[in-house]
């Protein structure tokens, strides 16, 4: 179980995460939602160890994830970052192989097993046909899948995803989330995912956390968190919540008329 306990993160003396506590079980997909700047990415970066929190702990099976060395942490936590910086001249295959860094040592010599795992990751993310292409030549959606493949190659029990469906069209959004869902079910992964699309969150996540101004305001099942009251208040936008035609899931629709009035 991934346990985040009273995590507080500050930039330049200004707290961007206040006392966030949550737990994610193996086989559970936990979605983080909230307006821009609410601290979703900060939480993911803090858990992955790249920004030091002011206080609080992150632990997995009673091991403190934040105090272990980089290599050990990379055996436990894989990240699909919001890709701003990519080694564009690398091929897809070379990039995904970097997911094996925690297993390869300083020389980066890939074993048969490493190559086999890379191959599986490429196939399961549907980018095996792009293996020899350069990252810079790919579309945003293809790059996103490369980053997912790299995180899968890392073969960790915990997977953190920061806006994984950004830049993806509907088909690829569904393909990607179906894949993550399959992994969660089959490999009992712990998945923590920051997402903007509330309807995809409703359809795919087991639990949802609503972050507002760095604090976790609500956490629970989609039905409990994705309510008209919670969403309208958090996003300062009037919304309607309607029922999915087939599943027992809430869907969020912005109230165009009410929001027009709001502006006048």
């Amino acid at each position, binding site marked *: 179980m991934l346990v985040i306990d009273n995590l507080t993160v500050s930039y330049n003396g200004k707290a961007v995460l206040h006392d966030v506590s949550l737990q994610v079980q193996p086989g559970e997909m936990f979605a983080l939602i909230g307006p821009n700047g609410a601290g979703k990415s900060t939480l993911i*970066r803090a858990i*992955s*160890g*790249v920004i030091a929190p002011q206080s609080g702990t992150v632990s997995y099976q009673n091991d403190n994830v934040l105090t272990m*060395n*980089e*290599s050990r*942490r*990379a*055996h436990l*936590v*894989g*990240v699909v*970052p919001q890709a*701003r*910086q*990519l*080694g*564009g*001249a*690398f*091929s897809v*295959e*070379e*990039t995904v192989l*970097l*997911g094996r*860094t*925690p297993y*390869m040592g*300083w*020389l*980066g*010599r890939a074993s048969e097993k490493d190559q086999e795992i890379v*191959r599986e990751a490429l*196939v*399961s993310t*549907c980018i*095996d*046909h792009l*293996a*020899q292409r*350069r*990252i*810079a030549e790919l579309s945003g959606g293809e790059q996103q899948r490369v980053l997912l493949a*790299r995180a899968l190659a*890392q073969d960790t029990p915990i997977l953190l995803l920061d806006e994984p469906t950004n830049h993806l069209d509907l*088909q690829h959004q569904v*393909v990607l989330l*179906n*894949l993550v869902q*399959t*992994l969660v079910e*089959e490999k009992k992964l712990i998945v923590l995912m920051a997402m903007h699309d509330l309807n995809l969150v409703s359809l795919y996540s087991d639990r949802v956390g609503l972050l507002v101004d760095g604090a976790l305001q609500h956490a629970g099942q989609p039905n409990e968190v994705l309510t008209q009251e919670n969403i309208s208040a958090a996003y300062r936008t009037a919304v309607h919540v309607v029922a999915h035609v087939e599943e027992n899931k809430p869907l969020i629709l912005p109230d165009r008329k009410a929001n027009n009035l709001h502006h006048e």
Partner: protein
Amino acid sequence: MGVACLTHATLFSSDTDAMKISVYLLAILLLIFCLMISVAVGAVFISIPAIGGILLSQLSFTSIVPDWPASFATILLEVRLPHTLLIALTGAALAGSGAAYQGLFRNPLADPYLIGVASGAGLGAVLGLSLRWPETLLGFYLIPFFAFIGALVTVALVYNLARVARTVPLTTLILAGVAVGAFTSSATSFLTLQSNELFYRALSFLLGGSPVSGWDPVLAALPYMLVGFVLLTFSGHILNVLQFGEEQAQQLGLPVERAKIFVIVVASLTTAGAVAFSGVIGFVGLIVPHTIRILVGADYRHLIPLSILGGGSALLLADLLARILLAPQSLPVGIVTALIGAPFFLWILRRAKRQVFW
């Protein structure tokens, strides 16, 4: 896993290994060719069979009847051979460390010369030369060490000056490098003007010519460079991971701060070995890694060793030009590399502007 892919076509190439081996073979053959030409060509031409004969006759168990003038042996063994080896080692060191600096700063224009590291090493070396130590053999071996310290101080200074938040942008890197490089060059000139004859020796050094000849500089620089070459080659994977930025590198399990310091120290060690006795030779560290990158791609595990091999060949060819352009007078090789390198640099600059990757 039953995921429906939209396209199916597998393109795992198994012949890339064969291709890579042939690239290494080509690079080694080119280097051997350049070494032979460099040894053969000069004020007197020594034919390849004569070179072979002279070298073999050095071995005690062979008895070869010389069919070449006796002076050829002296020219070859005392002048050409050490000069050629020093040039090859220097080119290899500059290109190898150039490739490493480019990877470390994630910047295609980083070169030991452009970012001021070579000038810093030069200042260190000149300080070393100015002491009376060089007259002793131990002092000679300490010159690369002085250059190493000079290079380390400079690279730390430039990196911190150029750093904006977590990245080192192209413009600030070049500006900081030029400023620090100008400062260290001026400090060197200042020292030189306070001159005695030892400093006079240092001046020709600054023009990118070798002020000392014979085997001593080769032997003094060799340990630094050999250690540098091996460790640079080992740092290929680290540099690969760093290409995705420090944050992702850390998430992939790389101890980023230690890895960066490792690469900086190793690249500076190699640069120092090069600068200590060959002076400041610009652009080799830029041209060679870029050419290799265009030919074989961005994987630093291959880019670094191939740059080391190619750098040796490139500087040997530049040195050959330097020796024959105004023969019998010979130019400092740094002038030739700058004459060829500056236009190449401009081409890279334009290419970097057009493309989002390099």
